[in-house]
């Protein structure tokens, strides 16, 4: 056995995150680690790699008892880790990030050429052709994720841990990643794969370990664990159905709420036109780097729009600041919760009501009673797993943070909600809850502009999908024309020169 973690317990400030959890991995196998948001997956991993110290339990790696006190030791022992929140040094170059802490050297000095060549070579195997000397911050989330994966893969580790590696990847890249994992497996490397997309787990994993509430509740070969059983173990109950929720027919005569015409700024958004109507979910699809996030930021006034017009409920508007867009009833749940979303040291309560604060005041003073009422309501409605509303949001698991951010915007009662990758990092139970919630809000009159890389999600809830390619809106598919094939072909057909699908 390569890795054996037994009886692991860990409490944060007296609240148990792990209660005697266990994890075992054989050499050359891909072990799926699944569980609801907050089940303790990331914590278990961080205990293994020495980020946190365990309260109880034992860890054996490669037959020897180990107790890493910092990630450097785990790395030296042959464990490479891609953490859930992508951990790269943003201002350092791609090449440096891949080789950080084990730089190639010549005469004691860093061998820049070897480093660049090496980085280019690995990234080529991931079909990524980028200038490796640019800072990582220059690239989008997906590219960064790939760089993090490349870094882990090139460490010659015996065990690679991937905590939700695919959450910001599109299908092409997922395919590339899986090919890489298979290659690793063939060379005897074991992989721990944490993820919420069940199809992916079944596609790549050999065995599965299921966690619930800080405990290991089941483990079995993947093939012996039917989907329904897996979900039941995970949730501790049956899953509510997750099917098409959008009405089958178009309702063309709904009034237009938000109309964007020929919007553009810089090179990332060239020419985007899209409509969001009253009471509908309008999807925004596109390959990685097609400019969806940038478009959302333009509409919301977070970046300056250089060309084009925005019409909100018929009136032409210019938004210089997010506050302007908010005043018109627009909200944006941003894609990167760590950078653009949470205020880490503030409590859940405060984070949830941040956007709402100006409306919560009486003579400049926050109305605590209403605040509490709203917070309690949304914690219950979205099932946020937390010790109390006063807990700092940074202590929540990734998925639960996402729920708080969603609540932040729902609480403002917006007329248009732009939502960028709403279910990233959210467990399957909560995912269908969130989609259902969005759908019912739309049915009640809210207009949603939903950016998603998961086509099935768009297919399930969107009334209409606009497809972006290389910063340009290339197609708008009405409900009746929506299908995975249609979306893919629209995305691929118009893919720019850098696109591989042609």
């Amino acid at each position, binding site marked *: 056995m390569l890795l054996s973690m037994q009886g692991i317990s860990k*409490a944060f*400030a*007296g*609240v*148990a995150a792990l*209660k*005697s959890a*266990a994890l075992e991995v054989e050499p050359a196998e891909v072990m799926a680690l699944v569980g609801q948001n907050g089940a303790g997956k990331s914590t278990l991993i961080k205990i293994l790699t020495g980020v946190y110290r365990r309260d109880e339990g034992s860890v054996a790696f490669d037959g020897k008892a180990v107790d890493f006190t910092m990630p450097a030791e785990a790395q030296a022992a042959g464990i490479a880790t891609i953490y859930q929140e992508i951990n790269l040094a943003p201002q350092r170059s791609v090449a440096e990030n891949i080789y950080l802490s084990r730089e190639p050297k010549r005469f004691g000095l860093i061998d820049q050429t070897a480093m660049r060549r090496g980085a280019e070579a690995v990234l080529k195997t991931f079909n990524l052709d980028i200038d490796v000397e640019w800072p990582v911050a220059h690239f989008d989330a997906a590219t960064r994720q790939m760089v993090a994966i490349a870094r882990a893969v090139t460490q010659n580790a015996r065990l690679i841990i991937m905590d939700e590696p695919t959450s910001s990847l599109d299908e092409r890249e997922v395919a590339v990643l899986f090919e890489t994992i298979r290659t690793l497996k063939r060379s005897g490397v074991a992989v721990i794969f944490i993820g919420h997309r069940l199809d992916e787990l079944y596609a790549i994993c050999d065995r599965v370990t299921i966690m*619930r*509430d800080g*405990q*290991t*509740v*089941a*483990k*079995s*070969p993947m093939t*012996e*664990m039917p989907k329904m*059983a897996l979900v039941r*173990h995970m949730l501790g109950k049956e899953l509510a159905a997750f099917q098409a929720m959008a009405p089958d027919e178009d309702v063309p005569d709904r009034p237009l709420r938000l109309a964007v015409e020929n919007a553009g700024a810089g090179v990332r958004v060239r020419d985007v036109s899209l409509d969001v109507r009253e009471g509908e979910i309008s999807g925004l699809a596109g390959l990685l780097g097609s400019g969806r996030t940038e478009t959302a930021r333009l509409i*919301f006034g*977070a970046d300056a729009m250089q060309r084009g017009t925005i019409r909100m409920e018929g009136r032409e508007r210019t938004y210089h*600041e*997010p*506050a302007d867009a*908010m*005043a018109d009833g627009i909200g*944006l749940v*941003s894609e990167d919760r760590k*950078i*653009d*979303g*949470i*205020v*880490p*040291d*503030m409590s859940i309560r*405060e984070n949830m009501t*941040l*956007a709402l*604060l*100006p409306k*919560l*005041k009486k003579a*400049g*003073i*926050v109305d605590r009673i209403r605040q509490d009422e709203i917070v309690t309501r949304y914690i219950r409605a979205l099932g946020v797993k937390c*010790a109390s509303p006063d807990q700092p949001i940074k202590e929540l698991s990734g998925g639960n943070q996402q729920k708080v951010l969603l609540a*932040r915007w729902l609480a403002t009662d917006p007329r248009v909600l732009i939502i960028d990758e709403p279910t990233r990092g959210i467990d399957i139970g909560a995912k269908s809850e969130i989609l259902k919630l969005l759908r019912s809000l739309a049915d009640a009159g809210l207009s949603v502009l939903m950016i998603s890389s998961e086509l099935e999600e768009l297919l399930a809830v969107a009334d209409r999908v606009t497809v972006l390619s290389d910063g340009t809106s290339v197609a708008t598919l009405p409900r009746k024309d929506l299908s995975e094939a249609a979306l893919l072909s629209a995305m691929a057909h118009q893919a720019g020169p850098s696109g591989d699908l042609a």
Partner: protein
Amino acid sequence: MTTIETPAPQQSGTLSSGSRLFRLASRYGTFVAFLALIAFNIAVTPHFLSWQTLNVNLTQVATIVIVATGMTLVIATGGIDLSVGSLMAISGALAPMIFMGQLWPVENMAFAVTLAFLFPVVVAGLFGLFNGLLVTRFSIQPIIATLVLFIAGRGIAQVMTNGNLQVFKNEGFQFIAMGRIAGVPAQVVLMIMIVALAAAMIRYTVIGRQLIAVGGNEKAARLTGIPVKRVKMLVYMISGALAGVAGLVVVARNSASDANLVGLGMELDAIAAVAVGGTLLTGGRANIIGTVLGAFVIQLVRYTLLANGVPDAAALIVKAGLIVLAVFIQQRADRR
């Protein structure tokens, strides 16, 4: 398929009463340090237990607290304000010039004194606004942005007075430092009012919560519609204005304004008070009461060393050790 039997869920969140006591004690780390200092003084320092001691320490700490309150707000947004000492000098130089008729003739003394209270504070506030502008409009890092006025501000005060000492006697104006309200020194009353207002602002008002959010994650704050720039300009302005108030107190207390020395080194005392009080310099938190306690600790350390005849050189070392110790205790408390 193997399924592990789920053990009965354990009760979590229970703590032994001993560790709970420790948590309680260390949660108020600064307060404990403060009490320890008082106990030490009662035992060692001659004539410590008297009203006059309290009076001396309260009046001396007032200016630090006033400045440190503004500093806490600035630090909460992730900034820092090095210019406070220089702004004290500017406001301290301006006030006597007004009621001594050097700027414009004094026709009505009551009016001139009122103006001498308001005008310098407004000017200091405007200089603070200037800091804020540098930080927001030009995205200059706070240390450097406020370093500009740290260097130039005292020069401005010196140029205004030609470096000369301004000696004056003006009962109306000096009430702010010499007067008593219900037996309590006026500057102490002023200090309490400012602290109470600031604490209430942080805790209860929208703008207070917003400035914490700005310090905690500026990008996220902007995306929730918080007017980040305006919030920042406001805190720098408040910090400047409060430094202006402190400058008035100092010159009023001394019956003299010396542009060269008023507020010299105040920025470090204020920052130390904030840090000892448990507000992280990285922003995203503000603990006004902690700052007050921090300032009290620093004042008491100073008093203790003076009263016990510790020579200056050794006093510096002791002060250094105590600052580190106090912050250490406070941080351990926070982490628990």
